[in-house]
């Protein structure tokens, strides 16, 4: 009989875990082959869409794109060398902005009907202007979004910017702003379901003794959701959540027995939280985990910040239940409040909610350390990092800063540094286990 390290029969758990892994692999395959998925116009036509509109960033209201009858597809860069972008943006521009623009200039996004850029950072603002002039698409909208989340009248202002987007989308779709707003309750409800399901998965990763998904798997699941037709994604996600919840939280002793990130029976993975911007390649997280860790939580544009409110991330309002706790907005005012309530990204002010969310995630996830994954030349993340590091240190958490360029970690160097970081954490554990004896 197969037993876990506590001597229990682990066969049912291993089977359930296999089912989770199978479903995750299917979703990962969709993301890996996203260009083919998005190019399949018949799929979207059959699902009732007018076409596909790309969008950047967690602050683009997908609900409105859906309400205009378009499939929202998030723009991500593909790892690798860049080419045509060199004629438009200097090499010291953020590598994510350069990567996305490069894909577009190569024609990879020509199949889109349009694109929505929300205001975030200086580099993406410039990328938006270059995109507008050089990528042949029929719809382009730059949506101002406040940097200051506590400004007087910020919700009204955000709602008004969203109204401008609704009007532009409505005109493009031929249904007018009224047509878009009429559909909003329905699409907002769909997105609320998606976020609530993601919230349940993220909550399980964060709080269960044995995380049901590796960070690599979780990122794949998330990324599939920014590519896939949203109803199909919701259904697949519901099945995955059911499979995960069948797996159950496990116990600390199960850690080596068929759990996510499990290595051999002698090694219990180190629980880590990662923080950074857009991580578009699951291999980046895999590299972190290969060194003997499991990423139980994140503070990423491609993760928590897309669907979790800061109140939830700090442990308030119950669990990390996505934005479901905020309800499903029926109008632009509600939609604006929803987006303003998300875990803020570093382009937003004040920083307090962002810090509290990261610390809350690390605390709730019982993380042994935090890894910064910083996009090369991303100024806002780089500015925040020393402060976040100091706050993590205050709570006794070590952290490591790694740089991501063109979507990838510099593998050899990153692997070595991660290995040293995990060894340091292991050393701390040993000291703690020995009653805190000093070295």
């Amino acid at each position, binding site marked *: 009989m197969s037993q876990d390290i506590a001597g229990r029969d682990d066969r049912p758990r291993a089977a359930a875990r296999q089912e989770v892994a199978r479903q995750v692999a299917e979703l990962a395959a969709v993301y890996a082959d996203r260009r083919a998925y998005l190019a399949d116009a018949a799929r979207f036509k059959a699902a009732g869409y007018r076409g596909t509109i790309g969008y950047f960033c967690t602050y683009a209201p997908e609900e409105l794109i859906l309400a205009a009858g378009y499939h929202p597809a998030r723009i991500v860069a593909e790892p690798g060398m860049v080419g045509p972008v060199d004629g438009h943006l*200097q090499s010291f521009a*953020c590598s994510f902005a350069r990567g996305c623009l490069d894909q577009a200039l190569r024609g990879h996004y020509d199949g889109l009907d349009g694109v929505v850029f929300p205001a975030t*950072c*200086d580099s993406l603002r410039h990328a938006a202007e270059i995109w507008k002039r050089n990528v042949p698409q029929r719809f382009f909208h730059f949506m101002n979004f406040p940097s200051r989340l506590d400004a007087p009248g910020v919700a009204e*202002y955000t709602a008004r910017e969203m109204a401008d987007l609704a009007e532009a989308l409505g005109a493009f779709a031929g249904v007018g702003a009224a047509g878009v707003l009429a559909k909003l309750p329905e699409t907002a409800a769909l997105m609320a379901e998606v976020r609530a399901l993601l919230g349940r998965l993220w909550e399980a990763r964060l709080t269960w003794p044995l995380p049901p998904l590796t960070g690599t798997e979780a990122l794949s699941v998330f990324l599939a959701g920014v590519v896939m037709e949203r109803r199909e994604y919701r259904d697949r996600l519901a099945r995955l959540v059911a499979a995960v919840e069948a797996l159950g939280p496990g116990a600390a002793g199960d850690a080596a027995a068929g759990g996510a990130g499990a290595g051999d029976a002698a090694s219990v993975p180190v629980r880590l939280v990662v923080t950074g911007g857009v991580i578009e390649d699951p291999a980046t997280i895999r590299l972190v985990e290969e060194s003997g860790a499991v990423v139980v939580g994140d503070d990423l544009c491609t993760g928590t910040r897309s669907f979790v409110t800061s109140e939830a991330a700090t442990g308030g309002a119950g669990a990390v239940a996505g934005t479901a706790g905020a309800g499903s907005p029926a109008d632009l005012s509600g939609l604006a409040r929803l987006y303003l309530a998300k875990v803020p990204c570093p382009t937003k002010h*004040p920083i307090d909610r962002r810090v509290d969310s990261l610390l809350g995630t690390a605390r709730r996830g019982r993380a042994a350390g935090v890894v910064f994954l910083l996009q*090369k030349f991303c*100024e806002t993340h780089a*500015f925040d990092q020393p402060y976040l590091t100091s706050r993590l240190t205050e709570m006794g958490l070590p952290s490591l800063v790694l740089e991501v360029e063109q979507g990838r970690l510099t593998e050899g160097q990153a692997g070595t540094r991660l290995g040293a970081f995990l060894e340091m954490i292991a050393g701390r554990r040993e000291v703690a286990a020995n009653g805190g004896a000093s070295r």
Partner: protein
Amino acid sequence: MSDKTTGTSGATELRAAEPGPVKPAGRLKADADLKQLMGKYYNGVFWAHRLHRPIAWITSGAPVEPLYAMGITPVYPENYGAILGSRKCAVEYCEIAEGAGYSRDLCSYARGSIGSMMADRGPLNGRGLPAPDVLICAKNICNVVVKWWEVMARHYNKPLFILDTPYVPEEPVKPHQLEFVRGQLEEMIAFLEKHTKRRLSRSRLVRVLENSTKTVALWEEVQRYRQASPSPSSALDMFTNMAPIVAIRGTDACVKYYRKLADELKERAAHGVGPVPNERYRLVWDNIAIWHNFRLMKYFHERGAVFVGETYTNAWGEYSFSPEDYKDPIMAMARQYSGVLLNVGPEVRLGRLLKMARDYRADGVVFHSNRSCKTYSLSQYFLARGVQEQLGLPTLFIEADMTDPRAYADAATKTRVDAFLEILEGRKEAGGVGATAGAGAGGRTC
């Protein structure tokens, strides 16, 4: 907002009417006044607390007028960053910030000033800038300042006010966006009153706005004299002479200074006196100065090239107000501070650049691709194509950093400058002239 690039009247006619011999120019006489004026300003900064005057650390693009109207001393960490650059000690302070974890890829003004703040050390009086009582930051010049100001506010544990300005791709600013900014400006005034225990008098605010407007008019006059050949001043003069309009805009002393500078340039223009006696190539500069290497400017001068306009110095002509504005000064400030050069779309920027190149009869445009300032630099390839296509002017890119010399290669840059000037010379010999020649003259990029 109207295009604030300087007009075309005045200097050219003046020079044509009195075509005296070209004479070499030394330093501006006004430089001595400038030194005294800015010395006095910094003395005021260092003495402010002893005189019980509150200090606000403020961004260069933020509305300074309410501060002067309330007797609050504004301090400009950006200007301080430029000082670190021009005194060639930026690396020393940047390295302190880098040692504390701030990436070398970040803005060098920020790194330099953070380093000086952390070490409480600096070139002006041995110590860093005096601590702020409050901090004011406007996002209209970049997102970086928001993060930079957060760092400084945390360091001193002092209250910070952020003025969030929407991006304005095309003017005019939308009414709901103006209302958003206006609401924040009102909040900013309440914030200043609360934390400095001083009241804002509306009449004093209007008086300061009037001074700002007078200053801007004089600044435009100063710029206009540069349309003369030879230009009575160069970028070297203007980069240093912009300090008052940045730091003490709105004061009587600032108005007085620019009156004097304008008179001097008028006289120079009338007598054909300029920094480049044998002026052969007239150029426009885009982006912030390379503060640590003014020798590069002299390298241009020695080869007959003079910068007759800079988008950077020209941008300070954007903060003027009309008598109509004084009825609702808060809304007027909301409008003016939303439409500044770095907060508008590339077409608007290109329009201002083309107008400048035409008005100043430029032979070419030099783009400082400034590693530190993404928001200024990342549209430059678009702007360069616009200059080439619409005016037929050659363009040159110089890779550098405004204060950090580690990101600059002098020999390689000079080679590119030589090649660029050869292109300009070829055009001269072929009978091509400046920006007034019109489009299609075969612009190239070095």
